[in-house]
């Protein structure tokens, strides 16, 4: 009797699931936000990490794009066409990012793809992007994305190959000629590490200790002990994960007095919370979004950035971080290009329009793409921050 009831229940559940699946396959309804526009929507695919390691980056990215989509659609869309964003979660998994790309191209027929959140995921999408000839705007910071040049692939953040020389020059200017490097073995850390080792001689800096740790390590004091023995003038750390707090706390533990410099991957509130008072005096480079005065009051950049920051803060209750800024820029670049396409929009025409982006003021900087430069940013978009009383302040440049 009991078993029979179970079986009935199980078949009911199965039937319900099946019904749901069938409904899910039904043709997509028109997007609800019309904003008065009657024309076909422009479909843009978005691949972000909403789960997994990079979820803390991917979620603000999605929020920033949703907010901008709603704003543009309520203003009548682009050339009368509303924008439809189709979000796919890659779960911080390169294989899933590639599969999501196929789905967006084949099933949804998108004009362009924004994504992914991470460097490895962005690179995994490339063969699908090339096969279909759809333009891609990545929000990941790995140098490899635009260094391994592809006419279809664009990038919004400052890659390590721009940030590393900037911070090395800063360190040399402050008089630190003998530095120790500590980096993680993940994609971002390794990419940065290799550029540091290559660029240091040009900045007049010698690397006297070179240590690594793995993402997820619970202690880095062994590595720091070796660095202490090498007696550097300063320490440069390159990573984006929570282990950054271990490094600053470990240096304090070992009584190391050297100044510590970091990367733009450390521009996260969670780092300050995790490191506590040990983070005081930590110096790192990042875009101007953290302290908008850096844009220079009255400039176009300042106006664009503050209106984004205000709208985001009002809608989500917290100010946007640099990652939300990269997503805003990616969306802005695509929308700006859509406006400039003449006639019916095709992925090819859209790609050409993106490549002609010129002097476009975003949050991360002013973008000018060319047939040889698909990053479009320069060192001048970066400023130096210092952590003081648990907050970011501008360091003397």
């Amino acid at each position, binding site marked *: 009797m009991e078993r029979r009831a179970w079986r009935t229940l199980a078949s009911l559940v199965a039937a319900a699931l099946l019904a749901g699946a069938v409904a899910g396959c039904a043709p997509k309804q028109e997007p609800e936000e019309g904003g008065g526009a009657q024309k076909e929507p422009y479909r843009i695919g978005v691949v972000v990490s909403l*789960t*997994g*390691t990079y*979820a*803390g980056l991917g*979620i603000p990215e999605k929020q920033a794009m949703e907010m901008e989509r709603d704003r543009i659609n309520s203003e009548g869309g682009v050339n009368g066409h509303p924008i439809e964003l189709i979000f796919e979660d890659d779960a911080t998994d390169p294989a899933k990012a590639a599969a999501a790309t196929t789905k967006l191209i084949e099933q949804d027929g998108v004009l362009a793809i924004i994504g992914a959140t991470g460097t490895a995921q962005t690179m995994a999408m490339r063969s699908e992007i090339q096969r279909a000839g759809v333009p891609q705007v990545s929000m990941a910071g790995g140098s490899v994305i635009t260094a391994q040049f592809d006419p279809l692939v664009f990038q919004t953040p400052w890659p390590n190959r721009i940030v590393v020389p900037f911070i090395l020059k800063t360190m040399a200017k402050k008089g630190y000629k003998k530095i120790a490097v500590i980096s993680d*073995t993940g994609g971002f850390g390794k990419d940065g590490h290799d550029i540091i080792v290559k660029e240091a001689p040009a900045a007049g800096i010698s690397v006297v200790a070179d*240590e*690594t*740790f*793995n993402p*997820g*390590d*619970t*202690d*880095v*004091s*062994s*590595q720091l*002990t*070796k660095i*202490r*023995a090498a007696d550097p003038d300063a320490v440069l750390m390159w990573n984006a994960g*929570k*282990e950054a*707090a*271990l490094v600053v*706390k470990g240096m*304090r*533990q*070992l*009584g190391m007095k050297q100044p510590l410099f970091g990367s733009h991957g450390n521009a996260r509130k*969670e780092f300050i*919370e*995790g490191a*506590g008072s040990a983070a005081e005096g930590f110096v790192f480079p990042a875009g101007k979004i953290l302290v908008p005065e850096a844009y220079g009051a009255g400039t176009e950049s300042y106006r664009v950035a503050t209106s984004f920051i205000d709208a985001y803060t009002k809608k989500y209750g917290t100010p946007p971080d640099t990652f939300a800024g990269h997503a805003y820029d990616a969306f802005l670049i695509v929308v700006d290009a859509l406006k400039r396409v003449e006639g019916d929009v095709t992925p090819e025409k859209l790609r050409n329009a993106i490549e002609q982006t010129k002097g476009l003021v975003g949050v991360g900087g002013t973008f000018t793409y060319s047939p040889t430069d698909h990053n479009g940013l320069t060192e001048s978009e970066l400023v130096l921050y210092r952590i003081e009383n648990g907050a970011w302040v501008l360091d003397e440049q």
Partner: protein
Amino acid sequence: MSTADLLQFVASGLQNGAIYALMALGFTLVFASTGVINFAQGEFFMLGGMLVAAEVAAGVPLGLAVAGAVAATAAVGALIERFALRPARASGALTLIIITIGCSMLLKSAARHLFGPDERAVPAFSEGEPVAVAGAMVQRQVLWVVGLTLLAAVALTVLYRWTKLGLAMRACSVSHDAARIVGIDTARVVMASFALAGALGALAGAVVAPVTQTAYDVGARMGLKGFAAAVLGGLGDPVGAIVGGVVLGLLESGAVAFVSGTYKDAVALVVLLLVLVLRPQGIVGRHLGEKL
């Protein structure tokens, strides 16, 4: 290399080793009473840290938060045993192990939805500057890590040697059938070992969180380390778990000191493989032969 540096490497090894030992104890307790490797052990570690972080954020005093997190995770361990594993009891170890993998995914996803994707900070148990111990500088929290591990090891030894529950657990590790014949409620013993494994994992996660911060996804990696430590010492042997944990911690720190941080995990795993080839029962283990 100076003596001070050498001592620093040893201190770092002991700090990590203590955490690995707590994790290994969790694996070993469950294995001894069921013959199952509990792959949800790493998630117990994660729950310990995340629950403390959430409780502290909600205004619970730190000591109470740690106790609460350990108790809650012990309950999660018991519930997993009762509702996920016991119904499948008859279907053999492999099925049960796969069920624990499923539970681990479930706990991880649940934690992500409950606590969000970002890392969380936990305040140190006692504030203050680092202290010098035998020439090595250590953070105060590390004294808590090592001290609580020792306390847990002593408490577990007492439980195992001198209490009725401990006797029943040891009996179950020899033979479930024989234990039942002499009147031991084996189901209760298995449940208790899962609860204990949950408590140990949560303790490890809670006590190390002030040093490392914690996040919903820290479990898998720590589970792997704890498992390696348990195998290294000899699965099913509590003393072996502690020895295995400390040896693994020292090996990793030695690998950083004399090879490179990049190969830290690789060096530790190569030694693990060597031990398994030369002494399949682990460093301390004796009676594994017939169990496999």
